[in-house]
């Protein structure tokens, strides 16, 4: 009998692996509205369709929008230090796109809003030898890179708002990156610094094995639906 319970659970687990993806998708239809209207955050305990919060540093400074500074420098004609108000004063772009993590979870239809990275780079006057952009987090550890062509795409934002509000601290606020066509590890949180450089250098997770070109569905051995 004990053995039967053990084997039964193992079988349940195996069936779950086979159909879990569909079950989760179906369950998301029910839980998604719940999550939106749940002030307690308890709905976030339900697996699937939820954000997980990945932080690699032991401690991330809590920065208020009023104190926020974004340093933009490197191979540019005009190095800049921008405040939150400076970024807010620039043209804002709205996008509603999924957020896909390379570990498999996906949050659908997330509203994003912020300054196009392309617009920001236009302000600075990137020099011809600038071939890549490196981003650094003010958590002191995390970094990421894009080629200059990737950085100029329309769906790459320096995000000030997500989920219909200012970017919260846990989601990387006050300002984070959102690279829509790539896996989540490209969308660096707690953006503190942008540097134009001559070549791409692998980011924090990329030094630990993930692909540098992180296209959703075409990298990391995954075939997710592109965003």
């Amino acid at each position, binding site marked *: 009998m004990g053995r039967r319970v053990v084997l039964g659970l193992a079988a349940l687990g195996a069936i779950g692996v086979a159909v879990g993806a569909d079950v989760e998708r179906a369950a998301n239809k029910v839980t998604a509205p719940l999550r939106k209207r749940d002030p307690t955050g308890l709905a976030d305990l339900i697996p699937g369709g939820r954000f997980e919060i990945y932080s*690699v540093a032991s401690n991330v400074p809590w920065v208020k929008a009023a104190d926020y500074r974004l340093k933009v420098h490197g191979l540019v004609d005009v190095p800049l230090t921008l405040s939150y108000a400076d970024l807010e004063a620039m043209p804002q772009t709205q996008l509603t796109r999924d957020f896909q993590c390379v570990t498999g979870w996906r949050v659908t239809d997330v509203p994003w809003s912020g300054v196009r990275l392309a617009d920001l780079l236009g302000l600075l006057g990137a020099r011809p030898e600038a071939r890549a952009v490196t981003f650094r987090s003010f958590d002191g550890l995390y970094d990421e890179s894009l080629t200059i062509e990737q950085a100029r795409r329309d769906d790459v934002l320096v995000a000030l708002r997500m989920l219909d509000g200012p970017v919260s601290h846990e989601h990387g606020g006050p300002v984070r990156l959102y690279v829509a066509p790539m896996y989540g590890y490209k969308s660096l949180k707690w953006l503190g610094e942008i540097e134009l450089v001559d070549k791409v250098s692998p980011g924090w997770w990329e030094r630990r094995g993930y692909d540098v070109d992180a296209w959703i569905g075409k990298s990391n051995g995954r075939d997710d639906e592109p965003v």
Partner: protein
Amino acid sequence: MSLSNERSVSDERRPAARHGEIRRFGPGTRWVHRLTAVLFGTCLATAAILYLPPLSLMVGRRALVMTIHLYAGYALPVPALVGWLVTGFRRDVTELNRFTAADGAWLRDRSPVGPPRRHRDRAGTPPTEPTEPTEPTGPGQPGEQPADQPGVGGKFNAGQKLYAAAVAGSMVVFLGTGLVMWFGADLRIPDRYRTGATFIHDLFAIGIFFAVLGHFWMALRDPEARAGLRTGYVPTWWAATEHPRWAPRPERSDGPEAPEPRSEAP
């Protein structure tokens, strides 16, 4: 002899025969339980850090926490597998695996709803144990046991057996789904199965979290049961009350104590 006295006596200097107490767990079982508890606790704590946003942010260091979770997970079945070399542990597993008619009655008594409840109500039996027509038996007096292994199956109650089986089964699931999650990319396992494995891993984790809470709750209410796992000995009166069908056998390796006279059994 009072319990508080014995707790301070170290295992090695323990008198071989202890008045009013009987041997419940040998060192093999106690160490398997201890090490499994530490590893399971590590898995659950790191899982909470990885899964719950406020904890993720508070602790950070995701790469380190992932590594700890991973290795604690791999190590989880090791104590039980090594413990298999110890006769006493194997015997306890056999006890946990044997469901008897008395276990059926135990579960029917405690089932709040459903067919077992209706069966019980129809039978008109009061919700107390045992429901079988048995004369009160003490440990050492096997009740309606299978003839092949007389006396096996009375050491634990049905709830403990189910809990042990659920933990063992969950361990298999955690290990299997965890391997799919971790090596999925290298083994080119299709995304849908990796997503399924993650979903099941998360779901079982939430389930086992509440099961472990229940386990703590039961243990908190029963100091004698805790003493059994800490010292290896339980009071005879406790054994007679909690596990009347338990038939302890003299264990050569565990000391010379034999089942004592159970004249005080209910």
